[in-house]
């Protein structure tokens, strides 16, 4: 299964990439996707996560074709 991973703002700069596509043989949780793409580094404390443009938890399970996003606390408005 193929999923797309996006990073935004300061997190994008820390991770050093804005978008990654990966192929998985098993279904993973959002937290496991982070570990796989970020060399098993721990999930940052205040990180926010989304699956298909809706907020998710780190134990949300991703499906084939999903878009997973990681980003820092928001500061708009």
């Amino acid at each position: 299964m193929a999923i797309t991973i996006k990073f935004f703002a300061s997190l994008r700069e820390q991770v050093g990439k804005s978008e990654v596509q990966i192929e998985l043989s098993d279904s993973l949780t959002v937290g496991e996707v982070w570990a796989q793409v970020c060399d098993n580094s721990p999930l940052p404390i205040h990180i926010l996560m989304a699956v298909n443009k809706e907020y998710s938890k780190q134990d949300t399970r991703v499906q084939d074709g999903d878009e997973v996003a990681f980003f820092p606390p928001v500061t708009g408005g």
Partner: protein
Amino acid sequence: MKVEIISKIFNPWEELQAYEKTLIAQGKYGAVATFVGTMRDYNEGDIVQAMFLEHYPGMTEKYLQTLSETALQRWDILDTLIIHRIGEIKPGETIVLVAAWAGHRAPAFESCRFLIDELKSRAPFWKQETLSEGVRWLDQCH
């Protein structure tokens, strides 16, 4: 109901005037509460020269649409408007406009406050400030 993400400078009062003209409910509303957020030239003790506002295309719009629908369900209001700036912004320029039209003032105020509070705490926007010493993101994942 309107949600707009805009990448160029906008005048909040002209937007309000233009949007209000499209409302079919002329004479049906008695109260409009609005909030306008403007870029300050200072923040946390530093002089800020400019700002860059990043968003998550698709998710931001979806979030603000859902937020507006929630406000329309939760309060006795007639219409809402949200416009949010992205990209390069200079001090004095408008960052965000939120407005709620209602029959009476309590739901207008409460839903307007709800919209801006939720927008600020949950809508995927991120500010990067340009100071004399360089740039800084306003929030980071620790």
